């Protein structure tokens, strides 16, 4: 009955590798996000998709590429992993509607997955 599920929960990998984190939501939401949480617990938005369309792409290295095959899934692929990529990555979803080009009115709170702790060694 998990609303937002992401896998894996833990990921340990070497520098230079490529890895993916998967996320699925069964809430029927049309907006999904990826957040990065650093060691000081600061949560920073990375990407947002609405109905499979990229809405926001914050200043994130282009080694990070989100992919949304359908509105229930938003996967995160990371190329050439670096030590500084070590963090906890959270997927989230919410319900919203477009109010203008590239803009979105959020109608509900965001529901978060349990997080993926990525450790790059």
């Amino acid at each position, binding site marked *: 009955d998990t609303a937002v599920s992401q896998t894996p929960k833990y990921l340990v990998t070497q520098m230079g590798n490529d890895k993916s984190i998967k996320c699925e939501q069964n809430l029927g939401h049309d907006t999904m996000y990826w957040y990065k949480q650093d060691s000081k617990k600061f949560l920073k938005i990375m990407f947002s998709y609405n109905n499979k369309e990229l809405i926001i792409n914050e200043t994130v290295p282009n080694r990070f590429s989100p992919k949304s095959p359908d509105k229930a899934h938003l996967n995160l692929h990371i190329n050439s992993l670096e030590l500084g990529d070590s963090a906890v990555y959270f997927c989230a979803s919410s319900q919203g509607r477009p109010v*203008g080009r590239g803009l979105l009115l959020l109608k509900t709170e965001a529901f978060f997955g349990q997080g993926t702790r990525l450790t790059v060694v």
Partner: protein
Amino acid sequence: GESVGLHLPTLSVQEGDNSIINCAYSNSASDYFIWYKQESGKGPQFIIDIRSNMDKRQGQRVTVLLNKTVKHLSLQIAATQPGDSAVYFCAENLSSGGSYIPTFGRGTSLIVHP
């Protein structure tokens, strides 16, 4: 007491006391605010929300106060319990013209001592 600095702000209280967690937001056009609770090893969870046409909203043991004049939110937890120990975040949303994604504040670690 509360400490603020480079580290995560921390609020330590005794079980049964009331807790007040404060948050300053950045954009005067924000019109929807949410408090989240993040327990260790878990993702943030919704606690309570408030829209900008209100200045107070109450839930079960929690109250959120919104002061738009000074762009300030607070979360009050009544009769704090050990299970309330967590990191608390406020998040703001805009309805137009800018960031419309839940944008999180710094977070405050609440420690409840039995």
